[in-house]
């Protein structure tokens, strides 16, 4: 099956149901496991619908190379990458590409706002996000998994962020877009939020939305966040039961 490209636009909503049978404000099933990798300080494995994401956290350690170290705080290095076999098309070239560099950057900025960097001047914290299988919304899945990984590592942080996307098909607001919806929807908006104060840490958007549509999308995301936060909490607590 070839998806994407400039083919004819498929119908995203049939009888009020989406292509995978969900209702508009329904999340895909999420499964999270913490402490998957023994060598990492913190790690997590997330299955979010058909997305499969592995996140690992190392550090804090001495920043290398030396000239990138910040004398006042720790720096975060983040690498988001899709495995060459993760997708049905494209992404088949390994190594960082334009998209991966962008997602690494925005993910890094999410964590710069929650990790207490001032405690470790001159050091670095590494966050790795490896997408093993992708089906739309992998940056949100990556941030959600990495947040659980950081929390399990003992690196001090203010909050455990989550991320999820919302979008628009016609006039209908959809939560948690999959690959087909991502490609053919009229808008796509991934958002990362620190749930304690509902601080928005990441907000990107493709396409266009009216102010009302934006508000209701954000509302939907915050409501879904309660579910995602609970999954993260359960996974972290399960390790110590």
């Amino acid at each position, binding site marked *: 099956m070839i998806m994407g490209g400039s083919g004819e636009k498929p119908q995203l909503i049939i009888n009020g149901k989406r292509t995978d049978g969900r209702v508009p404000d329904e999340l895909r099933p999420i499964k999270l496991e913490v402490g998957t990798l023994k060598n990492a300080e913190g790690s997590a494995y997330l299955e979010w619908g058909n997305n499969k994401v592995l996140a690992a956290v190392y550090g804090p350690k001495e920043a290398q190379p030396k000239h990138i170290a910040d004398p006042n705080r720790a720096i975060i290095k983040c690498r988001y990458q899709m495995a060459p076999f993760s997708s049905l098309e494209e992404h088949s070239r390994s190594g960082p590409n334009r998209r991966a560099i962008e997602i690494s950057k925005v993910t890094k900025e999410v964590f710069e706002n929650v990790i*207490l960097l001032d405690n*470790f001047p001159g050091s670095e914290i590494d966050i790795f996000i490896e997408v093993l299988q992708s089906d739309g919304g992998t940056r949100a899945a990556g941030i959600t998994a990495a947040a659980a990984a950081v929390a399990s590592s003992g690196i001090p942080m*203010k909050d455990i962020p989550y991320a999820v996307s919302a979008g628009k098909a016609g006039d209908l607001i959809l939560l948690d877009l999959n690959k087909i919806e991502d490609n053919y929807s009229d808008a796509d908006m991934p958002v990362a939020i620190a*749930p304690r104060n509902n601080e928005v840490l990441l907000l990107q958007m493709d396409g266009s939305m009216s102010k009302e549509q934006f508000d209701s999308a954000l509302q939907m995301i915050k409501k879904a966040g309660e579910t995602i936060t609970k999954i993260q909490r359960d996974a972290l607590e399960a390790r*110590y039961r």
Partner: protein
Amino acid sequence: MKIVLPGDKISDTPVRMENAIVENGKTYATVIGMMDESRGAFIPLESVWYPREGDFIVGIIENSKNNVYTVSMDSPFRGLILPPPRPRFGGRGGRDERFGRHEERREIMHMGDIVSAFVKEVKREADQIILILDRPRRLTGGKLIEVRPSKVPRIIGKESTMLRQLETGTKCTILVGLNGIVWLNGEDVPLAQKAIAKIQEEAHVGGLTERISELLENKGR
């Protein structure tokens, strides 16, 4: 006891404690831990070692330059062992020689040597935090293993009970650095390693002392 995650409120009043931050007059946890409400204590389950004066560490000599040994210890902080201060008996040709030389040390160390020491001073240098180390001791033989810094108090135990139990049970000398490096030397190092791995895994479960003594009695079988 309740499990607390980063961002959870642990007190409605501002309390200054480790692994917590105060925001808007309330205290929030920054790491995963357990809250002992009866004592008002927050015990981290995972944490990163942050050096304090008097901490005991185990590290490896990384470099020796200008009479100063650099110690790497699996953390973002770098340890320095300065030469012993030289007693001043009047000037020598106007040069201010505050420090002695290598040869005046009791022990000469080389790159790769394992060393134990105490943190004498935590100093904030231009680009990172430097630890001035004191009372260095070169360790010969043995084996180094890494442990999670948050589990170190459990490995040592209340008034070193656990550590003593490990040492007698395995006939090993065990030095536990607060930085998360443990040096083992003696008769049954694999058993000690096994026991330490078990302590790390089950640090949060009660009755650990009994299970460890059982493990040591059965020689890990």
